[in-house]
């Protein structure tokens, strides 16, 4: 007799071994059926489902928490940016682009950057402030410029070579009387205009390149900068990073005034480097300057 099975035709002679296999399988199934009831199987499924649901829920909760934290971080950043903007808005704006200066120089700011550390605008301001105070510039004011600030010094009277006069003449807005009585000085005082020279320094810290406008600032306008600006840098601005894209530029506004003439902005009589050297600032704020 020949049986057709899944494995192909088998002779009836193999029937006994096949029967044994089938019998063993059936026996196994029967044993398995006897050892687990239908109720146990359902409980296991339910437990697995519950575990999976719990896992899903935990995962979702973690995602929600992460999303909430990210949202909180974004909100904090937005508020910080708003505070910075508000602080910058508090600072009066310096005329931008700046009015035509007598002379200008980009400072080599390697000395201004904290070596090995990231420098903030506040730290830069502190360093500039120390240099300025050391050279006698105790009065200064702050303005905002695009993404940075401008620091303005008080008008000072200087000699023809750029050296500040001794106080009180240094801080006088008028050229004082002649105090030397050698023949040359007396003759020059009697027969020439014998003008006084006045200077205002403006340090502009900004990541943006800028040029100068063609506007010629009058001395009285420039003198008002000291009153119009703020007395210190707002903390929100001071927290800003002084990154490598920032540059510190010094603009020198030099005026000539004789007794019978209005003060005039003069152009390029001395270089900015000479102004900084004679004022005693250059050694403090940089070792090498690029003009």
């Amino acid at each position: 007799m020949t049986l057709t099975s899944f494995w192909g035709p088998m002779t009836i002679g193999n029937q006994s071994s096949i029967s044994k296999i089938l019998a063993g399988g059936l026996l196994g199934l029967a044993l398995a059926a006897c050892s687990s009831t239908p109720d146990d199987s359902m409980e296991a499924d339910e437990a697995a489902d519950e575990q999976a649901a719990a896992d899903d829920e935990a995962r979702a909760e973690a995602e929600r928490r992460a999303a909430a934290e990210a949202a909180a971080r974004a909100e904090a950043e937005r508020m910080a940016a708003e505070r910075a903007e508000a602080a910058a808005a508090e600072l009066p704006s310096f005329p931008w682009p700046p009015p035509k200066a007598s002379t200008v120089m980009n400072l080599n700011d390697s000395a201004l950057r904290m070596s090995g550390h990231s420098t903030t605008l506040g730290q830069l301001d502190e360093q500039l402030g120390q240099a300025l105070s050391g050279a006698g510039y105790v009065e200064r004011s702050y303005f905002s410029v695009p993404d940075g600030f401008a620091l303005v010094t008080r008008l000072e009277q200087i000699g023809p070579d750029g050296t500040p006069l001794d106080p009180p003449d240094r801080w006088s807005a008028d050229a004082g009387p002649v105090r030397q009585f050698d023949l040359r000085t007396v003759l020059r005082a009697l027969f020439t205009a014998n003008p006084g020279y006045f200077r205002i320094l403006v340090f502009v810290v900004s990541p943006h390149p800028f040029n100068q406008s063609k506007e010629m600032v009058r001395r009285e306008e420039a003198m008002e900068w000291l009153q119009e600006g703020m007395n210190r840098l707002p903390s929100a601005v001071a927290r800003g990073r002084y990154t490598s894209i920032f540059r510190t530029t010094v603009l020198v506004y030099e005026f000539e005034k004789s007794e019978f003439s209005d003060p005039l902005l003069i152009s390029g009589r001395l270089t900015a480097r000479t102004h900084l050297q004679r004022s005693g600032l250059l050694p403090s704020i940089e070792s090498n300057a690029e003009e």
Partner: protein
Amino acid sequence: MPWMQCKKRLALLWFTGAGFIFLLFLVQTIGGRYGDDPELAWGWLLPTLMPTLSLMVAVFVLDALGKEGSVKNVDRFIYRLAFGLSAAYISVVLITILAGPFSEMGSSTLMTKSNLWLAPFQGLVSASLGAFFIRREPA
């Protein structure tokens, strides 16, 4: 005192003194002492000297035209008073100009303020000169 001699001395004093001051002012203006707008300085100087100079020139012209008659003498006191006041006045004007650069108030302010003392002083000088030219004794 002889009228002609006194008149010449006064003329010498005034024209020399005023001439020196004008020359000084001219050099100062050319040198730029009074800036691009020297009207203020010259506006102070001209009224300070010109009235008296004009008076003297008018008298000299009248004399030259012979309309004053023959006068030979003049009162010594009046002449000395006129000469002294004139010399002092010209000196004060010169000092005001020269002291400007060394004054705390500056030249322009000093010129303006100097009218406080120069104006009455000029009145005295003009009065004394007027008396000198009017009170002449006939020959």
